[in-house]
């Protein structure tokens, strides 16, 4: 059996779990079941769900925020200021939501089944000039943040500004934006960290959610042995991802130190104020999605209860 997996960009921390999964599956089946990983050759990143639905390939990665209308249910995971603090918590809430029948139902419209998540760190800000560590400092701040994150910064008086990720460095250097919200690996690879004076270590404004899915027909036509090999490799692949990303985070700290970037810690009071501002956005999401027939409140509560559990467990 030979599967094709559609990813994009190039091999990086964000794709290591898929690489590991392919390696494990091949090992466990003595090479009978192989997964070829393609970086952009099979589809455009915003059309990976379309490709799964057509049956052009069997596995794909995508991000919910690229096309909210394609995957309304899991956008709950992209709400701003949910309070997720680290990758382990991100994995826990993602897994809980993926297991919900409403998500399975929506994915099945694309002939897709959730396999695993690609835990992304919070999109903390890098910025130039004086650190912005209070709610009041965000008034008039031009920030490169898309989608729900952009809305959240707008709610605190920020001005979300549309630039593509590849123009983010340029936009920051030229003053088109004052701050850029990215995960650490993107701040490194797009060079925004090189322009930065400060980085918000604990603002944790939210992140994107990027699942890995499989085509249902292909999954069901696997032999029991091969399906078992695939399913049993997921948690190992995620562990590997977390370990690998941990190394990147260690390097991130080192880069901050080398470049003298100020690590801004925002006080608990200020963080509470941010959450306060975000709560109408959460309520609006619940209302809109409920009106469209999704069990929105249930999904939202599921995120919160899972998060609480994860925090108390750690």
């Amino acid at each position, binding site marked *: 059996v*030979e599967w*094709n997996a559609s990813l994009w*960009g*190039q*091999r990086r921390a964000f794709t290591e779990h898929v690489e590991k999964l392919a390696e494990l599956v091949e090992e466990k089946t003595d090479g009978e079941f192989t997964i*070829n990983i*393609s*970086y*952009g*050759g*099979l*589809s*455009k990143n*915003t*059309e990976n769900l*379309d*490709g799964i639905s*057509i*049956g*052009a390939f069997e596995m794909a990665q995508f991000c919910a925020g690229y096309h909210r209308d394609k995957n309304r249910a899991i956008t709950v995971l992209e709400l701003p200021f949910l309070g997720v603090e680290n990758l382990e918590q991100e994995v826990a809430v993602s897994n809980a939501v993926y297991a919900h029948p409403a998500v399975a139902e929506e994915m099945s419209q694309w002939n897709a089944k959730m396999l695993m998540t690609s835990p992304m760190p919070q999109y903390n800000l890098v910025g130039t000039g004086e650190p912005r560590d209070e709610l009041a400092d965000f008034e008039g701040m031009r920030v490169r943040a898309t989608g729900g994150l952009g809305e959240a910064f707008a709610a605190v008086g920020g001005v979300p500004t549309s*630039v*593509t*990720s*590849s*123009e983010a*460095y*340029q*936009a920051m*250097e*030229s*003053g*088109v934006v004052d701050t850029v919200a990215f995960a650490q690996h993107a701040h490194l*690879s*797009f*060079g925004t960290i090189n322009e930065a004076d400060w980085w918000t270590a604990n603002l944790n404004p939210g992140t994107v959610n990027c699942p890995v899915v499989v085509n249902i027909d292909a999954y069901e036509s696997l032999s029991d042995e091969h399906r078992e090999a695939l399913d049993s490799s997921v948690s190992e692949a995620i562990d590997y991802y977390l370990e690998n990303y941990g190394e990147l985070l260690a390097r991130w700290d080192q880069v901050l130190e080398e470049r003298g970037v100020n690590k801004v810690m925002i006080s608990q009071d200020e963080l509470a104020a941010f959450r306060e501002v975000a709560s109408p956005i959460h309520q609006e999401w619940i209302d809109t999605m409920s009106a469209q027939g999704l069990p929105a409140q249930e999904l939202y509560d599921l995120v919160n209860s899972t998060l609480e559990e994860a925090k108390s467990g750690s």
Partner: protein
Amino acid sequence: MDSIEIGLWVTGGLLVLVVLGMRVAFAAAFAGVVGLIWIFWSRKGYDASELGWAMTVAIKTAGQVPHGKVASQALSLIPTFILIGYLAYYAGLTKALFEAAKRWIAWVPGGLAVSTVFATAGFAAVSGASVATAAVFARIAIPEMLKVGYDRRFAAGVVAAGGTLASLIPPSAILVIYAIIVEQDVGKLLLAGFIPGVVSAFIYAGLIIILALTIKGFGPPVTGFTWRQRMQSLPPALPILAVVVIIIFFVYNPFGGDAWGTPTEGGAVGAFIVFLMALWHGMRWPELKDALIETAKLSTMIFAIIWGVLIYVRFLGFADLPGAFADWITSLDQAPMLTLIMILLAYAVLGMFMDAIGMLLLTLPVVFPAVMALNGGPFVTAEESAFGMNGTMCAIWFGILVVKMAEFCLITPPIGLNCFVVAGVRPDISVQDVFRGVMPFFLADAVTIATLVAFPSIVLWLPSLA
């Protein structure tokens, strides 16, 4: 038959269709769709009952490409700069530029051809698309050269080659595309193209002068302009400087302050300035409508090739030809510089058969990491690297080399786009004539590329300041 073999067969079939005279865009799409059907069917062991499934999946996969690939901000620079080209024509800028170049430079041997090269270089500073530049100067420069007795093939060749300068000298659509594929800073890349573009123009000029001195009856120098006439030619051409300054300031502020915006915005604002100039120069709705329809026609033609080739490229992705290429490159046991030169030569060969944008889109995801690895990885320092530069600088340097190669391929047969465009604008000149006329410039481009490989600082000096 394995997927690599299918890839090679379909590629051969595509070449046959192109040679037989099928429109290139649709031939590529046709080859892509057939290839996808073939490859999906092969995965079902050519079972007759699965042919319908294979066709459905293949056609739906191909059907994603036209919209999906075209709906991108990066590609929006292409129509914007074609529009600039037409508006600049109505603003009288192209003529003014050519006139000024003629009065100041045409006294050298091969004068009008040399003037054409520098006028296209000047126009390159407001045009982001090589093809548009070639189209505009085919209208202006070729008649003048024919008037004084140039060989029509050579006159067409000068314009086709001069047009390629637009993609090195900022703004440049293809540099933006490169930056986006390899996730590098767009502004630095645009700055990096400036000096190599000017060097390229001087090498073209040098070649023309040598040809004019050695070939009898090549085309006479044009002399007799007074200093007064020369000075008079400057003011109408000066507005182009304003546009250049605006576009540059949107990328990089030489005085150390903030730049004014992003390259994409700079392009569009530049177009708006030229639009105002054209209005001032007397353009009204009938002319504007004409410019818009002409822009739409040329854009459509270029986009058709882009999505057509990308359907074929999508098929190549499934056939994994790029993967096979990567394995081959990294298994070579030789000096990194030799491998780099081989990669550039491979681009020259590939570019003979592929559209430049399609070629970059297809190969860079594979070739770029290989080149970065050759240099010692993305985070290597200049001291520890193979090519004597750090990862970022290597990405910029390789980008300029690759774009210069892609530009070179715009003038090589069988599908060198610039030559087709010049032939299209000049109905009395056939594509074959243009290809023949442009041949001397292959040598000039080889010299330019060798210079850029040997002296990377030509590329890296400006971006290292920013």
